[in-house]
């Protein structure tokens, strides 16, 4: 337990460094998640709305899960060189299938009766999408976002091996920071991932339409719906 006391002392003594690396970590994760969302949500929602391409959309996450993040980042080094962009591209590649599959399944799985009723009321395809399908699909789409965010934050730790800055810098550099530093940074990363999980679990709850919320009352905050979909870091 002495090691952990030293680790906490390291955190107290190096707040400036750790804070800077946390900001770098979040910038890297945020950029990757932002790009992945911008690409995957419109695609997944469109495919789900049209009920097309289910094979590709569903299997995307199966293949994505099999990709080892360390290998992907490393291969990125071989192709794109070291630095922020390479790691960000790797993180986008890892986050994209998670978001895509969830967005597709969410919209594709909206109760056909609800869609039928909306059509019967004279809604156009676009209105059905925006007023019926998206509100009902939002919680599940958000579950994908939440899984992707936690996954990307976890994987961004490995950015250190490819020359981008993150809290992983300290974890993989035991020669400089010694065991207390490594443990201290590991604690920071773990706390960061847990905070992201809790924050997005709360957000997911907030975007769930009130009528749907009753069904999942009592569901635990951690490991809630959608969080076990995939994870490779």
């Amino acid at each position, binding site marked *: 337990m002495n090691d952990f006391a030293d680790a906490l002392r390291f955190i107290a003594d190096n707040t400036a460094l750790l804070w800077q690396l946390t900001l770098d970590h979040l910038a890297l994760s945020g950029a990757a998640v932002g790009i992945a969302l911008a690409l995957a949500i419109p695609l997944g929602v469109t495919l789900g709305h049209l009920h097309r391409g289910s094979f590709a959309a569903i299997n995307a996450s199966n293949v994505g899960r099999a990709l080892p993040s360390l290998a992907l980042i490393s291969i990125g080094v071989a192709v794109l060189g070291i630095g922020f962009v390479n790691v960000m591209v790797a993180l986008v590649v890892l986050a994209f299938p998670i978001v895509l599959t969830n967005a597709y399944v969410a919209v594709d799985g909206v109760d056909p009766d609800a869609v039928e009723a909306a059509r019967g009321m004279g809604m156009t395809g676009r209105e059905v999408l925006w007023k019926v399908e998206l509100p009902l699909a939002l919680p599940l789409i958000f579950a994908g976002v939440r899984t992707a965010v936690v996954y990307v934050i976890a994987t961004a730790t490995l950015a250190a091996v490819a020359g981008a800055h993150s809290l992983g810098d300290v974890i993989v550099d035991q020669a400089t920071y010694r065991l207390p530093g490594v443990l201290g940074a590991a604690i920071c990363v773990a706390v960061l991932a847990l905070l992201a*999980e809790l924050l997005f679990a709360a957000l997911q709850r907030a975007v769930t339409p009130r009528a749907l919320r009753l069904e999942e009352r009592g569901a635990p905050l*951690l490991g809630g719906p959608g969080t076990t979909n995939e*994870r490779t870091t």
Partner: protein
Amino acid sequence: MTALAAAQPVIPDFGRGSSCVRDNGTFCWDWVRAHWGDTLRPALVQHVALTAVAVAIGFAIAFALALLAHRRGRLTTPVVLVTGLLYTIPSLALFQLLVPFTGLSRTTAEIALVSYTLLILFRNTLAGLAGVPEEVRDAARGMGLTPRQLLWRVELPLALPAIVAGMRIATVTVISLATVAVFVVNEGLGAPIFDGLQQTFKTELIAAGALCVALALAADALLVLVQRALTPWTRVARSR
């Protein structure tokens, strides 16, 4: 002898590498062929062993917990909370956090890998057991089955597809995560990946990464076949 050695002109020894290896090509098949036996195959075997042990232990723990939670529903929330917590901790961090307790060892790697399987296996097993229709249970009880017989002869066989689905996710996840274990124990496909990361010659890294993906896909396909073999009735139902 030393004088003679010193008199030798210093010519770097590039070995007998092919032109691809000498020119530092992006991917050299002949390097893979030459080093399959001494680098890639041992790493692959270690990787399979790391994964098999982690999934087996994880399944034993999660299965026991799921059976308990199936009987006492109140256990579900705390188990999901704790395993969810473990699942959220980034692997690189969890590996390092275990080092003060178990050192830089295979045990450290296995504990972390096992902890990532628990949530998935527990939830799937429990969901499979909960999904057994009440009529089926009633019928089994009506036939005079004891609770133990009901569990092993009726509920578990019916839960098998969900359990195997959990095994597939857990296995593929562990295969992928085991590469990160290289930071605490120099075993598995993470070793050649990490090795390749520190040199400009990239064949080793790409080959090991590709092997890892292939292993994950192969394991996934194998488990699908196992599930089909164990649940012949699902096939009959589908073909009708």
